[in-house]
C-alpha cells in the first residue's frame, strides 16, 4: 500500500528527514515513536503533502502511484488521511460545512454521488456518537475554542467520516484523558479492515494497548533506527531512548570507523 524509500526532506534548508525507509502493507498498523524533534510530524506532513517541506531525495509509492507527485487534495481523495498533531482553527467555517465539503470531494473522487444535507446529518450523527462528541460542535467554527481533547476527537471524527485507506495519526493521543483515549482507539479500530492501514505516531505505549500495532518503529535524527513488534514499545516505556541512541552510535562507529 505504502512504500517509502530513502526519503530525505528539508525545511527552510535544514534537513530533517535523512533517509526514511518504511513499507506498510494493507491491513497493517505501524506505530512510530521517537524523541521530540526527531522528525515524526515532518514525515506525517510530507506524506500529506505540506509544501513547507521539500523532498530532496527518495520516493514514496502509494497504491502503486507516486504519492509525492500528487497535490494534497488528491492524496486525501485517494484515501490518505492525516490527523494533525496541531489541528488548525478556521474561524467562520463551521464544522458541519467543513466535514461535508471534504466528504463530498472524497466521494466524487470515488465515483460516488454527493451527499445531501439530510443524509449527511444522519451520517454525521452516527459518527459523532462513535467519538462521543456533542452535536453542538457541528455549528461551531472548526477547532475554534475547542479544548485540546476536543480537537483530537474532532480529528478522529473527520477520519471516521472520510473513511481513509491509510490513516496517519500524529499524536492523536497526546493530552487525552483515559476515556478520550479509548474513544480515539475505537475510531481507529472501527476503520481497521484487512484493506485499511494506519500509521500511529505516539509517545505513549498506553495507546498501543488499545490500538495493537503490527510493527513499532523508532524514528531518531530523521531516520528509522529500530523496528520491532509491539514489545519494543514496552521496552521504550521502561528504558527511554538513550540505549537505542548508544547502540545506534556504536553500530555507526563499527560500520563507518572513519566517520564521527
Amino acid at each position, binding site marked *: 500500500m505504502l512504500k517509502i524509500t530513502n526519503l530525505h526532506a528539508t525545511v527552510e534548508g535544514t534537513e530533517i528527514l535523512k533517509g526514511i525507509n518504511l513499507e506498510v502493507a494493507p491491513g497493517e498498523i505501524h506505530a512510530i515513536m521517537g524523541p521530540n524533534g526527531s522528525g515524526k510530524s515532518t514525515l506525517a506532513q510530507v506524506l500529506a*503533502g505540506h509544501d513547507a517541506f521539500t523532498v530532496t531525495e527518495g520516493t514514496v509509492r502509494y497504491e502503486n502511484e507516486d504519492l509525492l507527485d500528487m*497535490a*494534497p487534495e488528491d492524496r*486525501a481523495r485517494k484515501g490518505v488521511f492525516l490527523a494533525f498533531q496541531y489541528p*488548525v482553527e*478556521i474561524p*467562520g467555517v463551521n464544522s458541519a460545512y467543513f466535514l461535508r*465539503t*471534504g466528504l463530498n*470531494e472524497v466521494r466524487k473522487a470515488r465515483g460516488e454521488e454527493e451527499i445531501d444535507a439530510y443524509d449527511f446529518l444522519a451520517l454525521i450523527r452516527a459518527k459523532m456518537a462513535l467519538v462521543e462528541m456533542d452535536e453542538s460542535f457541528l455549528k461551531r467554527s472548526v477547532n475554534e475554542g475547542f479544548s485540546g481533547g476536543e480537537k483530537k476527537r474532532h480529528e478522529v471524527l473527520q477520519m471516521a467520516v472520510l473513511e481513509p485507506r491509510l490513516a496517519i495519526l500524529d499524536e492523536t493521543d497526546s493530552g487525552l484523558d483515559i476515556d478520550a483515549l479509548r474513544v480515539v482507539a475505537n475510531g481507529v479500530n472501527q476503520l481497521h479492515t484487512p484493506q485499511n492501514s494506519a500509521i500511529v505516531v505516539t509517545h505513549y505505549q498506553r495507546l498501543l494497548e488499545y490500538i495493537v500495532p503490527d510493527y513499532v518503529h523508532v524514528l531518531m535524527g530523521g531516520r528509522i533506527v529500530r523496528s520491532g513488534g509491539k514489545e519494543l514499545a514496552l521496552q521504550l516505556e521502561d528504558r527511554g531512548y538513550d540505549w537505542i541512541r548508544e547502540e545506534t552510535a556504536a553500530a555507526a562507529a563499527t560500520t563507518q570507523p572513519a566517520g564521527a
Partner: protein
Amino acid sequence: MAADNDTISGYAAAFEGFEAALNGGARSPLHARRREAIARLQEHGLPTARFEAWRHTNPAPLASGCFAPVMTAGKLSAEAIRPFVVSAIDGPLLVFADGQFVPGLSRVSDLPDGVQVHSLSAPGSGTAAIISGNLAALTLGAEHGFAALNTAFVRDGAIVTINAGCTVDLPVQILHVSTGQAGLTTPRTLVVAAAGSRASVVETFASTTSGAGVLTSSVAEIVVGAGAVVEHTRIHLHGAESLHAGTLHVTEAQDARFTAHTFCLAGRILREDVHTVLRGEHIESTLNGLSLPLGDDHVDNYTTIEHVAPDCSSHELYKGVVGGRAHNVFRGKIHVHQAAQRTDAYQSNQNLLMSDDAEINSKPQLEIYADDVKCSHGSTTGQLDPDALFYLRARGVGLQQARGVLTRAFAGELVDRLQHEGLRNHVERLVSTRLDAVLADQGEAR
C-alpha cells in the same frame, strides 16, 4: 476656492438652467436648500489632491470636469430591477431611475403601521415640516463638496419616517438605479426614526449598464431618535465603470442603537464618507463595512464616529478582499469630545490581498479629549492562512475551492451581521458572486 474653476462655473451654469426649468418649484423650501448648496459649492469647491481627506484617493476623476446633471429619467422595467430587489422582503419599496422616483415600480401603499414613505418630488401632508426641518440639516457643513453638489441638484429622493414607538419589521427598500445616462445623478435619502421606533432601511445602488461617464453623488441623512433602533444597509452594485461619491450622515439621540452596513461590491471608484454623531448618553453605534474591489477598482471608506456625550459605545469593523490591481482605503476616525467620558470605542480594519498588485491603505485616527475612555483599534493585512488552506486540502478540498471557503468565511462575518434573514441571504448571494470574481482576479496565479 476650488483649484478647478471651470468645473465649478460649469456646475453654476447648469444650476441656472436647472432653476429656470423649475418654474414655481423655485420658491419651495427645498429649493432654498439647493441655493444654499450651490453657494457653498462655489465658495468651497470640490476636493483636490491636496486635501488630506483625499490622500489615497485621487479626486480628479470625480471632481475635475463638470458632469452635466441628468435631467430626465431613463426607462426602467420590472425585469431590469429584479436582481436588485430583495424578493423575500414584501415591504415598502421605492425605486428611483437616474435619481427620479418611479411610482410604477415602487410599493408605497398598504404600508405597515407607523411608517410613511414618500418621494421628495411628491411629499405627503406632514412631510413638508420634516423636509424643511431635516433635509440637508446634517450635511450642509459636510467636509467635502460632494454633499453640496448633491443638494444643489437634488430633484427627488426617498423620505422615510417612522412614528414614535413603532416597530417596522420589514426593511424599507430603496433602489437607486442608473440607466447608464452619462452625467451627474443625485440620489437622496432622509430617514427620521422617532423616539422608541425600530426600523431597517436598505439602499441599493445599481446600474443596468457598465456606467461609463456616470457620476453618482449620493447623500443619506438619518435621524435616530431617543431609544430608537435603526439598521441601515447600503449595497453598492454600480456599473463596473461608474464613479460614486457618497455621504451618509447620522445623528443619534440618547439610548439609540444604530447599525450601518456598507457593502462596496462594484464600481470603478467608490468613495463613501460616513459620519455619525452620538449626541446623547448610552448610545450603541456600529459601523460595518465590506469592500470587494477587483481589476482597477478603487474603494475609499472614510468614516468618522463622533462621541459627544458620555457613556456611549461604538464598534467599527471594515473588511476588504482585494483582487487585481485594486486599491482599498479605510480611514476610521474616532473623535471623543471632552464631555464624552466613559466612551467605549473599538475599531478594526482587516484586509485580504488576493493578488500581488492589490493595495490597501488603512488609517485609524483617534482624537480623544476625554480622560476616562476605552478606545482601541487594530488593523491586519495579509494573505489567506496557509495552514488553514493546507488543512482543507488535506481533507480533499481543492486549492481554488479552499481559497473560496476561507475568503467567504472572512467576508461572511459582515454578512452574518445583517439582522433580516431575507436580506442576509440576498447579500450573501451578491457577495458570493462578487468574491468568485475577486478570487479569479489574482494577477499572477500562485
